[in-house]
């Protein structure tokens, strides 16, 4: 199986990571899943503050995502929506500022840009709960509903990014502020495995959460 890591991900994250690098904030900007943390980050520039290694070690739910308009752009502090563990796999859902990214349409890379109404960039990280190593080659389908009505329902792109490594994401547009349910269907990684992963993640797994979306002016 000649499947190099770099080519495996169908997406390459564009602008967000580069600015994070310059901001020097990596490793510090993951908000806990509470409403309070967002205010301390509201001055950051869009796309800043990428970090994945700072994933919470405990299961969480009910994160509050906020946004603030800065210079015509909608900034979303990187916020953990929820996280859980499945057979030693950490599943963490985060929101951050919507970004442009490239998708592989089979023959070339094609840019996907956030629209004016895009709420945030949803990222789902799958990683080994003990070592933190990202787990690629899996699949994530995210479904977001409000009061039982589905408002977002998409397979997430397998992606790579400088500070995150392999993850799964897409831009999300929500119809307005409120409480939403998030359901993630995680597909087993389609990859050769070292023996420590022989008996895990053999069937799809579903995890459901709640989060709050409070867009600013």
């Amino acid at each position, binding site marked *: 199986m000649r499947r190099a890591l770099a080519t495996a991900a169908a997406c390459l994250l564009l602008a967000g990571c580069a600015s994070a690098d310059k901001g020097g904030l990596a490793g510090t900007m993951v908000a806990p899943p509470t409403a309070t943390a967002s205010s301390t980050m509201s001055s950051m520039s869009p796309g800043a503050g990428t970090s994945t290694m700072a994933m919470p070690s405990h299961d969480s739910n009910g994160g509050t995502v906020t946004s603030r308009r800065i210079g015509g752009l909608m900034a979303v502090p990187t916020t953990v929506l929820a996280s859980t563990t499945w057979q030693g796999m950490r599943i963490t859902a985060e929101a951050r500022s919507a970004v442009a990214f490239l998708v592989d349409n*089979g*023959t070339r890379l094609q840019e996907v840009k956030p629209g004016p109404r895009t709420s945030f960039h949803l990222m789902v990280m799958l990683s080994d709960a003990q070592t933190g190593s990202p787990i690629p080659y899996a699949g994530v389908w995210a479904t977001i509903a409000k009061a039982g009505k589905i408002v977002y329902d*998409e397979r997430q792109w397998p992606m790579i990014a400088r500070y995150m490594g392999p993850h799964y994401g897409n831009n999300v547009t929500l119809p307005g502020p409120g409480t939403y349910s998030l359901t993630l269907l995680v597909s087993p990684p*389609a990859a050769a495995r070292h023996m420590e992963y022989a008996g895990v993640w053999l069937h799809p797994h579903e995890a459901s959460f709640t989060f709050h979306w409070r867009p600013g002016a």
Partner: protein
Amino acid sequence: MNERRYALTRRRFIMRAAGAAAGGLATGVLEGAARAATAVALGAQPPGLPARQFAWDATLARDRYGNAIAPRYDRLLFFDVKGTPTTAHARQLENALRTLERTYPWGPSGLLFTVGWGHGYFTRLLGTSSPVPPAMALSDFELPTIDDYDLCLHLACDEALRLAAVEAALVGGAPLSGASGPLHLASALVWRETRTGFVGSGLPAANQQVGGIPSDRPVPAGAPLYMGFKSGLTRNQASEDAIAIGAGPFAEGTTQQVSYMRLRLDSWYGELSDRERVARMYAPQVTPQQAARFTVDAASDPSLYGQAVRRYGVVGHAQTSARARRAGKPLILRRDFDTADGGQAGLHFVSLQRTIDDFIATRSAMNASDAQFHNPAITDTVNNGINEFIFVLKRANYIIPSRAERSFPALPGLAAALR
């Protein structure tokens, strides 16, 4: 069977329904009603009905290329058997089905229907082996609820209100215009769920203000299905002869697979070009101009699958599925239809095939899980047919017996009871 006895039967039925509606019926009376069913004479069947319940095609209109035009409206009613099945149950159901057959001509201008029985009916209620396995998830990107209903009644015709009226009569005991005979199934079956839908030019466009479809009305006006493409072309369908079970207790029967899929067409319509949609529906070697000229076959050569994987990094749904053909013929006969159930775009995927294994083979081919090992631009749900646009919510398998065996098949004493 004479008219006078029909009238008598109908009066009893109405009295029973009226009593039930009044809400004052004691349990003992209900049991008595069930017992009385054995004493009720079976209604007659119109002559000339096909032995196969699924023999619909001969009644269907054809387009100018000879493709069968599916009935425009469908309804799936799911039931459990009430209590322990007896020959009285069987007579109750058979009588209702015969009433339907006498009320409507067999065809889309009248009524078409099949009765299918689930795994649990045989194993749990009859304590025998089931001719169909329980359904299961068939890809790594689905986690469907596996329905455990005993019975699936698939109704179809060109008139939506007729299906609603038939359901009201069967499930609720409502009077049905033109019907003479018992219809209410409540003493034999417990209703569990109804799914509705439609297929045919214009209907998806008229019903596109639902979840899962962008609000700018992207569904083409003449499209028979939400995704905007034709389906059911003659050479893309198994024939009724090919799917008929040849011998044994279910001879002239077939197997039925029923899935409920959510459609999510925001990116289908919002992000893909015509060319990209055609590549994913058929094959990347097919152009929109060619697709528009398809007549009796969606020519999506499965032998070009390898080229699609390596050169195009995209595989098409028709192309991947066609790899499951046997001697060039598809294994399944699709009787699928779109739905707006729950305000959400969806697809009720009903397929008929000689064995459930034929369905599994077709679905596995459609998954094209092997493609990602040859080209990482393709995964189970990236650049892979229509896999990323359908989300399987529910699935079940049923056996559709012959018309003669359709009411409580394999029940001891059935043949004598229905004589």
